[in-house]
């Protein structure tokens, strides 16, 4: 075990997989000698050479399309979107080409799209988004969103080894604020398995990404009341882990930083409503960003994004219900 930040764990996972398998390569904007906008690939070009840490033109469809073609030919490409928001510019290749190739003609497309996501730092409407729900409407994509350093490393390795396109949402707010013990060497975390981040008996907070540390902080205040389920994988969803916790506690708060309408929370709430209705002791609550673009100025951004105090308040209300 080594202690490292969430960002260092992503780098470590990527570096470990590139050392393990020479078909793994990275492509994206400014990722070579510059090391990427967030320095995830700092030092990679020196170790692996510029061909395996490929600086591309500013062209997101070209990045995802090239990754798709290279994957068909046996490579394991890892695309970096400089910001998750920019996948909008590569969306066509992702949802129309990569996602559908296996269903249409049995062609596996083992690509990873790394998506630095999330707000809270005055990034404004185009550098703060959490676009995961876009991908859930495109059958053929797997979607993961780690909240810990160990999961960041392990899920990235699993995403690289998976024969399908995987959207890897890495929250920028966690990059340097989350630290943890991370297994050294090869480490994988299975896609599709949630994690009980904290055990409790009265209320389940189902969260992922940046909502997980907030849920844990809220849980600290309430002793053994609050259970926190860290989804880790958004598709496929770990239905059993969700339902098992709900059946235990009977109260549910679903928390994510992404906007509310038709989001992951809506899907999880529908699952619980359909499969665990009889076990509920309170209405299902959601804590999410408001359904507006993410504004720039700090007081405006804080008004839109869910805050820790909102989490605590929602937990208090549900526990008192």
């Amino acid at each position, binding site marked *: 075990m080594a202690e490292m930040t969430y960002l260092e764990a992503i780098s470590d996972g990527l570096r470990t997989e590139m050392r393990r398998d020479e078909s793994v390569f990275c492509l994206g904007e400014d990722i070579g000698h510059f090391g990427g906008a967030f320095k995830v690939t700092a030092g990679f070009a020196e170790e692996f050479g510029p061909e395996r840490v490929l600086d591309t*033109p500013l062209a997101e469809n*070209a990045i995802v*399309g*090239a990754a798709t073609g*290279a994957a*068909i030919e046996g490579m394991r490409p890892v695309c970096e979107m400089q910001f998750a928001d920019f996948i909008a510019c590569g969306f066509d290749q992702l949802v*129309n080409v990569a996602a559908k190739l*296996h269903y*249409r003609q049995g062609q596996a*497309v083992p690509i990873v799209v790394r998506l630095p996501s999330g707000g809270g730092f005055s990034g404004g409407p185009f550098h703060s988004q959490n676009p995961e729900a876009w991908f859930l409407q495109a059958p053929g994509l797997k979607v993961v969103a780690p909240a810990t350093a160990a999961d960041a490393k392990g899920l990235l390795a699993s995403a690289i080894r998976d024969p399908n396109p995987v959207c890897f949402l890495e929250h920028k707010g966690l990059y340097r604020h989350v630290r943890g013990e991370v297994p050294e060497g090869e480490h994988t975390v299975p896609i599709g398995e949630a994690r009980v981040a904290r055990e409790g008996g009265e209320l389940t907070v189902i969260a992922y990404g940046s909502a997980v540390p907030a849920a844990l902080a809220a849980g600290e205040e309430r002793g053994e009341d609050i259970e926190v389920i860290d989804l880790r994988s958004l598709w496929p969803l770990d239905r059993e882990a969700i339902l098992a916790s709900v059946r235990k506690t009977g109260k549910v708060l679903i928390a994510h930083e992404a906007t509310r309408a038709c989001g992951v929370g809506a899907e999880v709430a529908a699952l619980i409503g359909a499969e665990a209705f009889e076990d509920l002791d309170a209405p299902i609550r959601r804590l999410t960003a408001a359904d507006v673009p993410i504004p720039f100025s700090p007081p405006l951004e804080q008004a839109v994004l869910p805050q820790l105090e909102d989490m605590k308040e929602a937990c208090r209300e549900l526990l008192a219900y």
Partner: protein
Amino acid sequence: MTLSDASAVMGAAVPLDPALLTRADRAELLRYMTMMRTAEERALSLYKQGKVPGSFYDGRGQEAISVGAAFALSPRDRLCILHRDLGAHFVRGVTPDRYLANYMGRAGGVTGGRDGNLHFGARELGCVGMVSMLPDMALVANGMALAMKMRGEPRVALTFFGDGSTANGQWHEAMNFAGVQRLPVVFVLENNHYAYSTPNELEFVVDPARRAEGYGFAGAEVDGNDVEAVFAAVHEAVERARAGGGPTLVECQTMRMHGHGAHDDMGYVPPELLAEWEARDPIQLYAARLIEEFGFAAEEVERIDAEVTAYVAACAERALASPLPEPGPALEGVFADRWEPLGDGAAPWSGWAEASAGAAVGAAVERRAA
């Protein structure tokens, strides 16, 4: 676009070394073009009989392009084939029964009913099926070429697109990326002068082949109704790519002789323009040339036509005998359990004859590239 405009670009055609094509090659070129025409005519009649769900599209008048281009490829080269390029599928080894069954949504179609018309790529023959968004596959061809380049393999990826595709932003992304990375990729532009109903002058000001220079690689314009001219230009492009010389954009001037789809009466095309191009039908021109220039007997040419007609008829019977797919598996196959490599395609050109069997292929490709 008038006939005189089309004639003006023909001077740019690459001179073909006559020794590149044997007598048998020339018979094959005619055979594949005829097979495309005959199979599409049969598919259109099936559509009119109500046996094709959805819509129907063909490449009538453009047979020389897909056949001539695909004929230049080695077994281990890879293709993304578009909806007016049936001849390329046939050259690589897809049989007409699988094509016709695909159109009818039958289990025996290349996609088993998962996707329609020519939205297929036979994996076992080294092809990746197109999507409807154009020119998306140019970016995928880039990626295949990137993998080949990274591994130092003397292989080539080839894709087709139309004149309308050159107006889309992804076309620029594809050309620019290929140029920057100097990829072993060949872009074959079929300029059939109409993107659905929109003529060239509403799609672009500067002809796409001239834009190649702006991306830092070679461009060529050829008469797309001359199968040997297409073969020559693509052969040169493929050899350049294989030798590390980077991409080529080959613009083939042709005319879409049917509507965008069978539902389109193409009332927007001047009848005299169609008449001009009808007189330059690629199959009739080539059949006449085989007789006049290459010493074929008229009976030989007629025999090819008769053999193809009988073959396609038999294939149509097989396709009609193929059942509709069971509905249950519609819910399966969203995700893959494992990655498997594409297979190698047929390469009927005599230049690849030595590469026709299994393990010899890679070595032959490398010998040719050396």
